């Protein structure tokens, strides 16, 4: 269980939070093509390295925030409140 730094509640066990996945941009649903939409739904870069991802502090302040996490080492940096 890694430690995730919540901007409000401080460093917490990841079990206190919920990972909400990599930060991705959402295409305009009114104008995008179906294939663009499916790219958004299912395709993730998922690199072995640094990703920016969203976490939800479900056991604490109930805020969503982003961190940068190295998926290979679980090193964490660059925390930011949403």
């Amino acid at each position, binding site marked *: 269980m890694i430690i995730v730094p919540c*901007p409000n509640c401080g460093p917490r066990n990841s079990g206190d939070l919920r990972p909400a996945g990599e930060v991705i941009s959402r295409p305009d649903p009114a104008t995008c093509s179906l294939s663009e939409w499916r790219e958004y739904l299912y395709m993730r870069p998922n690199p072995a390295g640094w990703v920016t991802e969203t976490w939800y502090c479900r056991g604490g302040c109930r805020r969503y925030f982003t961190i940068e996490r190295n998926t290979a080492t679980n090193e964490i940096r660059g925390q930011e409140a949403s």
Partner: protein
Amino acid sequence: MTNRLPAQPGEVIDRSTSLSFTWNGKQMTGYEGDTIASAIAANGVDVFGRSMKYHRRRGILTADHWDPNLFLQVGDEPNVRAGSRKLQAGMVVSTQNVWPSLKFDLAASNQLVGRFLSSGFYYKTFMRPQFLWPLYQKILRKFAPGGEIHWETSTHGAYDKRYVHPDVLVAGGGPAGMGAALAAADAGASVLLVEHYTELGGHLRWGDDAQRAKAAELAAACEAHANIEVLVDSTVTGRYDHNWIAVNQRSHATAPERLVKARAGVMVVAAGLIERPYVFAGNDTPGVILAGAARRLINLFSVKPGTKAVVMTANEEGDGAVADLERAGVEIVAVLDARKGESIVAVEGRGRVSKVQVNDGRMLSADTVVTATGWTAPTSLLNMGGDRPVYDPVAARYFSNSLPSNILATGGIAGDGSTAELEAHGRATGELAANRSLRRRHDRVSQTARSGAPTWAKPEEVADSRTPLARNPHPECYRSTTHGMVDFSEDVSSKDLVQASKEGFDSIELMKRYTTVTMGPSQGKLETVNAASVLAEANGVEMADIGTTVWRPPYSPISLGALAGRILEPVRRSALQDWHEAHGSTPLLAGQWVRPDQYGDAMAEAANVRANVGLIDVTPLGKLDLRGADVPKLLELVYVNKWQKLDVGRVRYGAMVAEDGVVSDDGVTGRLGEDHWLMTTTSSGAGAIWEMLEDWLQTAHPEWDVHVTAVTGGLTSINVAGPNSRTLLERLTEGVDLSADAFPYFSVRTGKVAGVSDCIIWRIGFTGELSYEVHVPSGHALHVWETLLETGVDLGCAPFGVEAQRILRLEKGHYIVGQDTDGLSKAPTAGLGGLVKLDKPDTLGLPELKHAYGRDDLPILVGIQTVDGSIVPEEAAQIVDGDQNTILGRITSSRMSPTLGRSICLGQVDPSLSAAGTEITVLMADGRRIKALVQEHHAHFDHEGARQRV
């Protein structure tokens, strides 16, 4: 016969306290302080069990926690490690893995058919023919190791868990570990010192007077230090990311075992060294023991390990064993000095060693062989931190290569030294650990916005200036010129490993999986290095080129009870649950909630709702209070339908789909005021929908003025349903006109019910009857519930449970998300066509919704009735193509309807079967194929909704 020696200077047994126990039915006595194994050995027993595959006789090998031959059944507990578990009075101890008895073991004939059980036999035999697998399984179970579990009669009580946050966790309570703990604690760090055995001291415990005195001095200092908590008889079983450390505590006062979950700033690994067996023919014969075993038996437990011993020694431990054996009165037949090239070739003997063949050609007569051929550095915990240890041929063992900054190693795992040198290295390591962990603690507090800034200064960073421990030269003694056992717990010999290499499994990781070497309960502590050396020889390469297997958690196997621990998941109860239970309700566990399933007769409860009036507690319904000017924008985003024009005082049904177009939730949402709404969700979706709303509001639309408050438990929800519901409520409601004109269907009013203010009443109809859902502030819920029942006696008012509600809603054809839909059901399947609005600028899953409504191949949810109305198909029964097995759909809900007197269903069917009147075939669980007809409506009863609109 007894092997108990006169009092030894360092013995840990208390001769004034005798403990009686039984061993395979025979009465024996031991002393307080004995391990189970030392007590049995003191009674003259040589053979403790049979080996796993070949069922060879086995005796004491290491006389500690790792002894592969000392897994015993104690009462109803299997696999007790008799080499470390302390004896208790009344224990009923028996052998495992024998059939039918220890002396006459039928499976020992496996030795004769050994070639069928060699490397990879799991993969080569018992494979074909496949239909014999159940038989193989039965036979193999008889031969398999492990004791018996008795869960019906288990008396173990509750296992437990604990969370702890030390600055420094020290794994290992020898001189280095205790030194590290003391230095870290002196520097202000909080320390958790974890020792595998029941006493601190490590290898000093069976050492000389000075070593034992030092151990006692350090242990007393640790016990007395305010910053140190000592856990003995506890094992650090795993290290995970960010120093999340699992400790299996066996010494707890009330729980049989406890899993301690520690988050440590720095972990200091001071695991010491584990003595390796030597590989030669007959090395698993009872009487062949390690030097450490001899010393522990004599010095700690005053047990004489034999009468005539041959000692092979390559180090001080072996030399010390010679002295101890002499003092214990064991005749030393020969001392073979491995440093001079002397070694054992083979031993002979069945129940006990009788002859020893030496490499100079001598054949010696002895009943005991003691070997001291070197060490395994248990680098397990270092591996788990990412380290890949490297073999040093001079010291003949592995050393850590590179460690992350939050793990430090000290003691035997880091090098050699005198007691004073080991303690000094430990102390230096403890100081470094304290520096790093206190800096981390300072950071952690500083990073927590809501806590004040630390009132203490952050220590300056200290460089690692420890003087490294020496690496003393040690001969590389792994295998003699003969083949012998490498893995005692898995019965894997060096011959098996050579064969595996020849078959192409010539990397250590492949060989491990193919032969199962190092995969037994010792987890490589005794076997890994020998296995690597045999493989190096077979491959004709250097040890250093072989590498080692990666040691993963657990360090030592952990009981399932400790992992399960105590289940601390809270159960949610509505304010009325006590009342339900006092009135005969059958509990139903629904997600986190416990609910009344029925009060005795669900069919009668349902009939009463249709005839009179019923009350049901629907509190688990998710309830979200939404406030702000932009709530309609949020609702338009998350629901498939439109919300901008809903008037104050009205409620509307809404369905949700996720971004992939799959139906995710539904419920009724009402507008209580211009900027005040109450949303309801399914019971199971309550938490997820709340989080989903927050996600959109916080990450995508922070500019929207919406505030969400979860009020699921704060409001107790009572549905008053039935033709008499209006009459009943009129008697108790103040300030709300309940007449059909003033309070029409799908409206909401706020008022006083049974004297309770701020009740929200909405008129909806899940049951299909005239009904009102009353949301009462939970503190007054019981009063309202009881008043409704009392006031409605003459109207036939009675409670109904979840089962009756399920019958009623199925009669009305209302689908349940997750029951009648699944993880693939798109909006058209659920029949949401009239609800979905595709002309919105943004709504969840909009492109998927558009796509779904262009398809004609999606399954359709339909009402279904069996031709024979007395048959109720099982939920999830398949709908098939006549007498073929092609699946064309399934029954999603089914019940016997008390109103119609026949069975009714909802089901998903292929679109080709969705037209009303289509005859379909339902395949029942018992194999019957029954006929059923697709209905025109989902509703089996009053599909126009006349009853709910009165």
